[in-house]
């Protein structure tokens, strides 16, 4: 086989790992929801439009800068007027080390509803009223950084279990999060994890019911369309 023939035969490559794809998308959501200003134009800025010559001259720079500034001001005004309620945090994928008890061993029990395990008391923060999603009650205290870290750590464990092909474990951990942090800041992500775990366990009806509740609770969630894809592509 000629060298270039082998090169052409390579093709564009196979499928990327599904867990990596999910993590990247979740991280994108976190970045996009946190963004309040127009995205900075990076080195590929020249490649968006075939009508723009690859090299920018001073006039284009000035026009682009003016548009960016006006766009930024307009965006900030619109954001202030239309800002979503509550300081909603979105889970990012980088796990942080938090001391948690060793993960119990899980056995797949697809027919039994998962039971949330009891958290050792010393790991649970004192009862802190977290901001309910959709609430504009300014008097509600934001959860402590340690509580958020614990939420994230639990969901990291759930996510890793799912990546290992252990949906029962992932679901149990998600339910544990729900019991420990019923109105936690990462409730949206927990629900999405739980729904995907139910689908993986073949509990489609339960997954669908929970997805309907998810849509009602988080109508503008970016995770919604990904969940629909999960239902469409079992």
């Amino acid at each position: 086989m000629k060298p270039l023939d082998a090169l052409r035969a390579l093709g564009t490559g196979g499928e990327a790992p599904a867990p990596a794809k999910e993590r990247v998308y979740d991280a994108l959501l976190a970045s996009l929801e946190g963004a309040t200003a127009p995205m900075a134009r990076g080195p590929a800025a020249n490649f968006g439009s075939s009508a723009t010559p690859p090299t920018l001259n001073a006039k284009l720079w000035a026009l682009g800068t003016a548009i960016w500034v006006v766009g930024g001001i307009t965006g900030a005004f619109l954001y202030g007027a239309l800002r979503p309620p509550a300081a909603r945090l979105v889970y990012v994928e980088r796990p942080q080390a938090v001391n948690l008890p060793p993960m119990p061993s899980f056995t797949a029990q697809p027919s039994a509803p998962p039971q949330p395990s009891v958290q050792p008391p010393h790991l649970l923060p004192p009862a802190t009223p977290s901001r309910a999603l959709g609430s504009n009650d300014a008097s509600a205290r934001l959860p402590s950084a340690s509580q958020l870290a614990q939420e994230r750590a639990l969901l990291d464990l759930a996510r890793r279990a799912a990546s290992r092909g252990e949906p029962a474990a992932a679901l149990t951990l998600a339910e544990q999060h729900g019991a420990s942090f019923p109105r936690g800041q990462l409730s949206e992500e927990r629900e999405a994890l739980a729904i995907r775990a139910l689908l993986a366990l073949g509990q489609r009806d339960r997954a669908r019911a929970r997805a309907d509740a998810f849509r009602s609770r988080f109508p503008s969630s970016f995770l919604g369309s990904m969940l629909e894809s999960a239902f469409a592509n079992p």
Partner: protein
Amino acid sequence: MPSRREDVPAPARPAFRDVFEAQFSYVWNVLKRLGVAERDLEDLGQQVFLQVHAQLSTFDTHRPIRPWLFSFAYHAASNYRALARHRVELSIVAPEPIDSKPAADEQMITRQELELAELALGRVALDRRAVLLLHEVEGHGMPEIAESLGIPLNTAYSRLRLARQEYEQAVRRLRAQRGET
């Protein structure tokens, strides 16, 4: 009959979610082939799609989307490799000596050739490798490649010529290492 592509009604602009779903694996593999380490693919992938999200509204839907996406991946990989800590010499581990006698299984030979092709591709300079991938592997035309990478057409052709030379040279060396004739 429209004489210019601008006269042809533009296809509908794809939603970002659809672009991500359909093209994530493509971007992932492009980043790998442009020398991004496995451990950094997710970070770079996120960077690329953040850029895509920011500029999707400017994408000319007359054009094929993959060269456009490739340009983001290429610049991300270029910046990544410019960092000293990522500037790993291509210490490609010499493949295990393979029995040079022709294998009875045609598929085995083909797989070996494909592995060799991947290794040799990794030895081509990044800017030339980009042109080689877009043209030889993905089959895009040179004008489209030049426009996507933001380089003059002559430069694109020059890089393609040099890329082919480097690639074939790398194949010869790798075959020599393997004891193949």
